[in-house]
């Protein structure tokens, strides 16, 4: 596998779509989580509302980070939790229209997860996941030969 591209060309080709997917996922949480909390738990005192939505959002963001890290390490099946999270964002946000949300935050909280799903489904992202699996195999082989020595 000596046709493996250099780091620079690899980044130039795949980093935008990789980062775009991460940012889209983070921003869908940014807009969806407060909206969901405001709509479905209107009786929660503001302090608790903020605490749960902020810390919950942080935990979910950590989940996004973990998934993407595992993808970068060459385990493409970790893309499914991401897809589920984004789908849940869309499904959770859609009915909140009944609670009269701010139009901008409602629009953005639908736009970002859909954008994220689009990016994850793109040809580039699939290609990158495949390439990263190859890199992982290569890495394991090299580490194995190092240990054998």
């Amino acid at each position, binding site marked *: 596998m000596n046709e493996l591209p250099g780091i620079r060309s690899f980044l130039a080709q795949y980093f935008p779509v990789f980062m775009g997917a991460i940012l889209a996922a983070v921003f869908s949480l940014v807009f969806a989580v407060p909206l969901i909390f405001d709509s479905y738990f209107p009786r929660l005192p503001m302090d608790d509302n903020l605490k749960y939505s902020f810390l919950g959002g942080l935990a979910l963001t950590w989940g996004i980070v973990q998934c993407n890290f595992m993808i*970068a390490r060459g385990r493409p099946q970790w893309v499914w939790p991401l897809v589920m999270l984004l789908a849940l964002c869309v499904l959770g946000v859609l009915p909140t229209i009944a609670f009269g949300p701010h139009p901008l935050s409602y629009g953005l909280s639908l736009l970002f997860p859909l954008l994220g799903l689009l990016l994850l489904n793109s040809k580039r992202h699939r290609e990158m996941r495949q390439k990263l699996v190859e*890199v992982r195999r290569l890495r394991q082989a090299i580490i194995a030969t190092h240990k054998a020595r």
Partner: protein
Amino acid sequence: MSNPLLNIGMDSNRSQFMARQRIESQINLPRLFAAIDADPAIVGAGVVYIDADFNVVTLREFQPICSIAPKRIILREAQKYIAPAQFAQQVQDNPRESRLVGEAINTSLSCAGAIIGWIVVLSGTVAVPFTAGASSVITAIGYTAATASTLQCFASGYRVSNEISDPSKNDKLDSSEWYQYTMIALDAASLIGVGASTLTTIKLVRLNQATTGKSVREVLRGLNRQERAKLTKELLSIQDPRMTAKMLKLKQLSGEATKRFTPAQVKHATVTQIQDALGAAIGFTGSAISGNVRTIAVGLYEEMSNE
């Protein structure tokens, strides 16, 4: 203030003349000026007084001692029919509108940090086959940096989202203890991740804490993003001494290039002193005249050139 008469201390109409007479008889001007000149950052700042009837009286012209760009202390008297609490609210609420832009800028900065973290992760991962074990350390550091900065990206984005839907949530966040502790943890984690040197970071913060007597949160908060970037660069230059001279020069250059004039804030201590100087006179005579303690807002404004 295009009227040339104002610049030599003359007032254009009778109402302003009367206002000047009243203010000069009520406020201990030398003491007020002394309080202002005690702060090196605003020595010789101009003093403008806006009274309840919107008469603008220049008590003192700006003298270019502390800076070339004019700085003015604006003292604004509350309208008589507004309660002090309401007035304070009004003054505080005024800069509210520009917060969205500030939060958005903050978000883009911390998301830029996240992007750098992820570049490290991805390039570290791809580089591993070539360098074997050595760059797995880079990947581990990258994981910390990417995690912390992505979480910060979420945290600052969350504030933007609040600012859009309900700005009072952000005020609530700022006053919550759990929020502050979470942000300390994130700040520390991102500093450790980017600087890759736990000891240095904590030492620096501790040192700062010892000299300023501030809490860790305050110290970290006192450093704005740019300063934090500087601190990170310093940490990096400790690790690689060859880079220092070049970096310093670059930093200076960029510092000069990005210099901007913004409404500056008077230091808390100075405001207190100014209010003390005002309070003794205004509080007493004011209540004697109108039966109401007079409320005054203090603000410092900087500008690029004379209006």
